[in-house]
């Protein structure tokens, strides 16, 4: 029998009894063929590959990351709590040393879920990686974590959550936001004053092939990881860069995903998007599993694969080279750039519009981050939805200084109830969460 070179834990939870709607991409059928392929390949018999069932994420786990309106119980269905719980179980398996690496093949996904949650956007309600990451930090200490988001869509929710947290390096490679939902993720979105340069976006042109993805990995992501030295690497493993995906325009392959995971060598991978449920997912998931377990994946190929299908133009190759060099220079010069941008400022203010495509809600946000010399700075978010709801969310960061802690509590106490539909305080120093209506 086959034996894994690296012990791998799998949380395989296809949620066969849950769908957004019968014809929605996020439907019961999504992981059916992946399950068939994995069973037929005998994946669950491989010595060193172990299956774990998800746990169910708790309200407290969610409130460490999000501000759900009106609250977690009303807004977050069981399916999303289990999906986040699947990610948590995968992380626990690694951190408890039950296994060396883990892969949570769960649905629904999470990387479009921002800090504030009015509803479902991009099939996500809660950010399953962020819920997992904050659970890890609560239980196992404040680790330095790198999240590499290889979904074809910009991981805008994860960016929002870790915008001002330099203990979390967030790198998203995705199809250029000018051509795809959610329309963000450009190279100048680099992070808040407390973590400038620790949020890196790599917007790739449509039709980028295997060559382009692996170039970005070798010449940008791996060198940056080498310098950042994370304790844990997470692959936010969306699979919609595949050449057969129905809602994107990229040319990545099962072989490519295998190579990417072999080189990136993530401790934990979490499935995100990917909607070519027959032609791509069964093969990509197989490729990722074998690569993570240190096994040969050279024979894992899609039935209709030909190298010509996934080759990219000379023009794209050139464009990507230039892009990588620009982004690497941003990373290298992050401190100088931050100095220029934030020097002598007391607060940095951003205004954002966030559209919940699945639920059809428009949100307007003002995010105010304190530029603080002792910590990464208090964050105050004022949000308004087109349904007439107004929220105030106060975030005391994990490294919050006494002054920011006091300011946060003071603001929470003194803000009058009538002005907002709900007022929240997330105190990450003491793992506390308060809200009032």
């Amino acid at each position: 029998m086959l034996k894994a070179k690296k012990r791998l834990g799998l949380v395989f939870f296809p949620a066969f009894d849950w769908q957004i709607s019968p014809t929605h991409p996020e439907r019961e059928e999504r992981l059916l063929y992946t399950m068939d392929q994995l069973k037929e390949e005998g994946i669950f018999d491989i010595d060193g590959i172990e299956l774990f069932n998800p746990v169910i994420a708790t309200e407290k786990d969610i409130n460490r990351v999000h501000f759900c309106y009106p609250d977690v119980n009303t807004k977050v269905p069981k399916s999303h709590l289990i999906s986040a719980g699947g990610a948590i179980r995968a992380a626990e398996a690694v951190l408890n040393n039950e296994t060396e690496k883990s892969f949570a093949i769960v649905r629904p996904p999470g990387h479009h879920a921002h800090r504030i949650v009015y509803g479902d956007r991009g099939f996500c309600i809660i950010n399953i990686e962020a819920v997992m990451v904050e659970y890890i930090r609560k239980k196992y200490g404040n680790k330095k974590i790198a999240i590499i988001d290889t979904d074809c869509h910009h991981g805008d929710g994860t960016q929002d959550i870790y915008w001002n947290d330099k203990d979390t390096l967030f790198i998203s490679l995705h199809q250029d936001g000018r051509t795809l939902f959610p329309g963000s993720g450009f190279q100048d979105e680099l992070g808040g004053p407390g973590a400038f340069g620790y949020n890196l976006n790599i917007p790739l042109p449509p039709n980028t092939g295997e060559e382009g993805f692996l170039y970005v990995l070798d010449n940008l992501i791996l060198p940056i990881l080498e310098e950042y030295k994370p304790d844990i690497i997470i692959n936010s493993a969306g699979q919609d860069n595949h050449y057969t995906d129905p809602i994107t325009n990229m040319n990545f392959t099962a072989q490519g995903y295998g190579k990417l995971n072999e080189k990136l060598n993530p401790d934990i991978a979490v499935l995100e998007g990917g909607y070519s449920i027959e032609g791509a997912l069964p093969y990509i998931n197989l490729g990722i599993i074998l690569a993570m377990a240190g096994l040969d994946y050279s024979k894992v190929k899609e039935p209709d694969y030909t190298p010509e299908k996934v080759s990219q133009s000379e023009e794209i190759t050139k464009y990507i080279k230039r892009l990588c060099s620009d982004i690497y220079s941003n990373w290298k010069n992050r401190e100088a750039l931050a100095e220029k941008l934030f020097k002598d400022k007391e607060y940095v203010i951003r205004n954002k519009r966030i559209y919940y495509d699945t639920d059809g809600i428009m949100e307007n946000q003002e995010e105010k981050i304190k530029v603080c010399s002792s910590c990464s700075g208090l964050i105050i978010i004022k949000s308004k939805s087109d349904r007439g709801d107004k929220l105030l969310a106060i975030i005391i960061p994990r490294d919050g200084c006494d002054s920011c802690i006091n300011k946060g509590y003071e603001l929470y106490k003194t803000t009058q109830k009538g002005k907002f539909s709900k007022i929240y305080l997330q105190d990450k120093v003491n793992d506390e969460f308060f809200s009032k209506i």
Partner: protein
Amino acid sequence: MIIGLDTGGTHVDAVIVEDGKIIDTAKKNTNKDNLFISIWETLEELLKNKNLNSIKKVNLSTTISTNAVIEGKNNPVAMFIESGPGIDPSNFTCGDYTVFLNGYIDHRGREIKPFSSELVHKEAKKIISKGVKAASVVTKFSTRNLSHELAIKNILKDYGFSPITMGHKLSGNLSFPRRIYTAYLNSTVYNSFNNFSIAIKNAFINKGINIPIHILKADGGTLELENASIYPVQTILSGPAASVMGCLAFFNLNSDAILLDIGGTTTDISFLADGVPLLVPNGITISNYPTLIRSIYNVSIGLGGDSAIKVNEKGEIVIGPKRQGPPMALDGLTPTPSDAMIVLGKLNFGNRKKALEAMKIIGDKLNINPEEMAKKIYDKFGEIIKHKVFSLLKEINSKPVYTIHELLYSKKIKPKKIIAIGGPAKAVSHILEEKFRIPCKVPKNYDIANAVGAALAKRTFEINLMADTECKKLSVPEMGIYKNIDNSYSLDKAKKDAIELLIEGTKDFYVDYNPDDIEITEESSFNMVRGFFTSGKNIRVKAQIKPGLIQRIGGINNA
């Protein structure tokens, strides 16, 4: 009257059962070099002075196939394997010749690429000229589309290959590696089993007895000799199943329970869920070959009445996992749990003085007097079983689930009773009750439990039906069915068809037909959506004639 026979490592036991009563028993030593002789002699003794006309059926639990696998007395086999993309199939090489074919069937059973028939012809010619006659044909996803396996088989037949095992006929469950190993084992034990089956059939005929002969399977059910001869791999490792079915025969159990077969060297652990034996999730493993053969869950640990007892460097008592001869009470050289139980008056054989001596040897090392030592060993014996059972239950109760409903509500096994059989069973029942805090029962005739279990076992059968209304195909691999359907095919129709097929597939042999035995064990229907429209349904139904007993000892359902 029904005859049940069990082939053990040391004895062959046989019983005649009628209306829940044991009429007679017979016992002979096992002659490992000629199992047929051992079995037939036991049957002849049992049949002495019996009215042969009133015998309705005979169920045999044999070790013919098992021994053939373990001892490697096998036919050479040519493997024809078609994998398509995925894990490199050379990882699963077994048999004497392997031919890898280049066709491909995908997860929905669609042919992506035909195989090269020239290659099959070329290799078949080469291999048959070397005198290899047995072959197995396995393709990936053949349970979804059997056409490649069938076509390859038809080519091989013309070259004179026999037997030719096709993977899809052995099980409808997915697992290409297990299908390869199972198909290999079937071809390789074929001759050994057929030599036996021909001999036993002729022996009955010569005695003027013409009754159905069934062979026990690892899932606790039986298979008629005719089919067992084609699929002898289905008869491997039936011993533990005989023992579990035997336990069921003596008690009316509807709850979760622990079944223990405590012997001299090992203790076998099985479980009941709501009175039904728990099966292993994928299939049983034999000689490092994981198979698709359904089997009762059974874990063997190296702990028995004759296990050697030692004291390790840390000053802890270690029992087993090896046996080093008989207990000291029977002139052995190593202290054993049996010695402890003799000292405590729980077992009554051998020389108690020598048993005391055994306890003194261990006790001296720990500064404990022999009686106290015996108590400690007795306690430890129970403790080891408890520890193992709890860790197995933890594993079983965390089996993978795939739906939100299952995750929230799936059944967990919580045993309410222990049934123990075997030599030391009665003696250890007290400590087991203390450790587990549930009652422990020991049947009176446990020494013939296996033969009784074999006698009362029923024909079992499982089929996997899959219908894909977009591809317009229906497949029931176990019955060799692969046919067209129209797009109105529904889950209800699939369930109805599955039940009819189960009955049809067993009707010639199904002497104990009872509609209550038929059940649908899994059912699902997925809407297939392509673009924004529902393009078909993916329907899956698993149905079985479940393992169980035709009656219990002490009258039907009355114990």
